């Protein structure tokens, strides 16, 4: 432990943000990471608990007390080694992870948690700038071929782990660039895409073949799931060509809101809206980009995707943004003795909310439900809503509380229900009750589906979740695949 009394001496500091007016002009990241002195002080706050809850609170089990100490000692090189030993892509999680580790931090029980995420961010940014992140080539090749289908964080992590133990990995992506939701879901202002490009180069140097624009199987007709594939390959072909197939296609099917008027123009899934902006940011030309300029935007869904829609709409220059959340407004501060060290339910206000509110554009509504979309000449003009109350876990409408809210653009950000069924059906993979690929996470036989040599990991198996869970599943599934191919595996679980 760096400094025994550090937590008593130093306050937690938040990473700095660039001013709102400046950051709204573009789609660049605006978080200013910790400098050396700040990182040293922040890591000194770690108490090196006998039982570090952060370590088990973190889905990839980052060895947090150790890297905190190393940062305090100024040994950044070893710190990145420790961090990389459990997490393939700390620059992703250091930017966009909600940090369940900090919720679990013992200091969070009656004080402010150690700034674990900001320290992680500082370590990996330093490592990249020092040139410490290099390809880790396998000592020998196994001659086994593995197809990883879907290039989100689960697929990338799995591909990297498998390549590092010598398998010939091909990473398939139906869109034009790898990254999945990281690439086309998360706005650039939260995470710039150069981070993914750098990892793509590392993956290729480590021997991974990346095939973008290739759809595995087929998409259902009329799907709204973003698909820019130019060619396709059948599951049979894949199974024939590869010794193992790992499905990491995510949970792409957005939850719909089948209220009257859903067919009106101007009602879209968030996952139609957000990918287009990211593609434009990447320099691609896109005709008829879905934009919010001068519009009254209603975002339905109070989660992170909704917040990303708020931030993107604000940057587009929307006239006004209203965000709906069907649940009542949670408390600003959780009851720590009740929930610690678990993830608390509390009001979360993102940087997108802050900047939009600062511009006087944002209205957040809680305990509100959509009854109908109203329109004129086939174009949406408003959303008819009703206030709701929750009684014994059941939603009850409040009589006489109907109201029409003006809307030129409605974005549905209510989460994802399950993977696109045709992908799983194409492989004849069994589904669980929620429509996800059925596979366990057991030490033996984990991540294997009912179909021989076909595995599944990430959101496609567990349902919509965090990037950090995807990385965990990718890593664990890589071990399962390696064990299946070789009989034994040295990859970590």
């Amino acid at each position, binding site marked *: 432990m760096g400094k025994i009394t550090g*937590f008593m001496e130093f306050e937690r500091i938040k990473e700095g943000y660039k001013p709102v007016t400046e950051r709204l002009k573009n789609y660049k990241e605006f978080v200013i990471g910790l400098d050396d002195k700040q990182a040293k002080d922040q890591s000194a706050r770690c108490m090196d608990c006998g039982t570090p809850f952060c370590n088990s609170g973190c889905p990839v089990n980052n060895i947090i007390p150790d890297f905190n100490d190393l940062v305090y000692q100024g040994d950044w090189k070893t710190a990145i080694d420790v961090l990389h030993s459990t997490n393939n892509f700390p620059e992703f999680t250091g930017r966009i992870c909600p940090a369940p580790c900090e919720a679990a931090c013992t200091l969070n029980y009656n004080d402010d948690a150690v700034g674990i995420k900001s320290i992680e961010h500082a370590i990996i940014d330093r490592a990249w700038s020092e040139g410490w992140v290099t390809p880790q080539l396998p000592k020998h090749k196994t001659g086994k071929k593995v197809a990883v289908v879907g290039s989100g964080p689960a697929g990338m992590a799995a591909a990297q782990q498998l390549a590092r133990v010598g398998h010939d990995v091909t990473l398939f992506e139906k869109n034009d660039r790898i990254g999945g939701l990281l690439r086309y879901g998360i706005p650039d202002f939260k995470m710039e895409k150069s981070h993914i490009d750098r990892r793509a180069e590392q993956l290729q140097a480590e021997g991974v073949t990346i095939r973008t624009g290739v759809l595995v199987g087929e998409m259902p007709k009329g799907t709204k799931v973003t698909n820019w594939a130019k060619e396709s390959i059948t599951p049979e072909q894949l199974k024939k060509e590869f010794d193992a197939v790992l499905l990491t296609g995510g949970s792409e099917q957005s939850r719909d809101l089948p209220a009257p008027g859903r067919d009106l123009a101007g009602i879209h899934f968030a996952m139609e809206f957000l990918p287009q902006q990211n593609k434009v940011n990447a320099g691609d030309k896109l005709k008829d980009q879905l934009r919010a300029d001068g519009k009254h935007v209603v975002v339905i869904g109070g989660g992170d995707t909704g917040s990303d829609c708020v931030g993107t709409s604000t940057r587009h220059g929307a006239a006004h943004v209203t965000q709906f959340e069907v649940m009542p407004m949670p408390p600003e501060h959780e009851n720590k003795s009740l929930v610690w060290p678990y993830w608390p339910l509390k009001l979360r206000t993102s940087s997108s909310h802050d900047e939009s509110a600062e511009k006087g554009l944002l209205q957040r509504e809680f305990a509100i439900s959509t009854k109908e979309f109203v329109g004129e000449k086939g174009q949406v003009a408003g959303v008819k809503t009703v206030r709701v109350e929750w009684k014994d876990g059941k939603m009850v409408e409040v009589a006489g509380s109907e109201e029409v809210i003006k809307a030129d653009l409605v974005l549905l950000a209510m989460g994802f229900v399950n993977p696109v069924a045709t992908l799983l059906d194409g492989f004849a993979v069994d589904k669980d009750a929620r429509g996800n690929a059925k596979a366990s996470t057991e030490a033996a036989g984990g991540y294997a589906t009912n179909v021989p040599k076909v595995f599944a990991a990430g959101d496609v198996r567990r349902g919509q979740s965090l990037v950090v869970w995807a990385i965990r599943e990718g890593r664990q599934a890589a071990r399962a695949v390696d064990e299946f191919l070789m009989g034994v595996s040295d990859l970590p679980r």
Partner: protein
Amino acid sequence: MMRKCHLNTCPVGVATQDPALRKKFSGKPEHVVNYFFFIAEEVRQIMAQLGIKKFDDMIGRADLLDMRQGIEHWKASGLDFSRLLAVPQVADDVPRFHVDVQDHGLEKALDQKLIEKSKPAIERGEKVQFMEVARNVNRSVGAMLSGAVTKVHPQGLPDDTIRIQLEGTGGQSFGAFLCNGITLYLIGDANDYTGKGLSGGRIVVRPSIDFRGDAINNIIVGNTAMYGATLGEAFFAGVAGERFAVRLSGASAVIEGTGDHGCEYMTGGTVAVLGKTGRNFAAGMSGGIAYVYDEDGQFATRCNTAMVSLEKVLTAAEQETAVPKPVWHRDQSDEAQLKKLLEDHHRWTGSKRARDLLDNWSTARAKFVKVFPNEYKRALGEIHAAKTAKTAAPAKAKKAVAAAK
């Protein structure tokens, strides 16, 4: 979960003395009560599931314990508790739990005899003197006698009212908690914990008449002698085992050599060591004084000086000029106290070493080292300052009254 109890940084204010952190403690006694209710309730549930009515019926039922399967952890794999959980093959009538009362044989204790013979002293305060045989099976000799005396005389008896001469080997805790007015004079040797919690009495242990060795090279009492002794004095004409005078808290003791960790955690009282000590002397010592005869000049290497300073034993005259009065141990000069201890030691035990030192006093004194705990020195100064402030204030007030008149 923190495991930082030793660092004074407990973040929830439990294991810390830091006032800022202690403020964070939010526990209440009722929480503990609640907790135990929950435990009791859960125990009842488990007992009901097992079909057991009484707690006694569960004792020794190792056959009901099992290893939980399915804990997937590298530490758990490879554990086999079957031998730990094995139930011994015994007949059904062999009891599984406490069904008998222990017999300590107190009615046969040597102290019963001592109390009987000390009756004139206990009842009428008369002086008594008698002899007994000491055997190592007699534990805590003098403790029950002290109890009997204290029942009638809560402050004890005048010095030396009861003098008991014993011959042989004193058992464990010989002279434990001995009260005012009792002298145990043992010719022979004694076991561990001799003089434990000494509370005003006197213990003398001198070698057997048949002993032909050199007292300063031979053990006479066992380990942890004088543990936590608060009052009284003890003279041992020989060497003690480990941890001599550990936690000594006010009594005086003379010894002719010690094992390791002498005067550990000592908080008060006076110790004179007339021979060699073991290592780690005075570890954690915060009060009282030890005078150590440093014949080979190497004592400093055997002393733990984390909390103590080593000083010279000055002559009374030198001390008068060189050392401020407030930091004098017991308001007396070191020379006077040490000399008195040696004289008493010689008088009680006939110690040859004490005689030699007294006969060559000026050389001997110069070789004594005074072990002075830093905290004790600070406290002496503060106590003195507080006292003078108290006495000065009324004096000033009187003067003011006089002036007004």
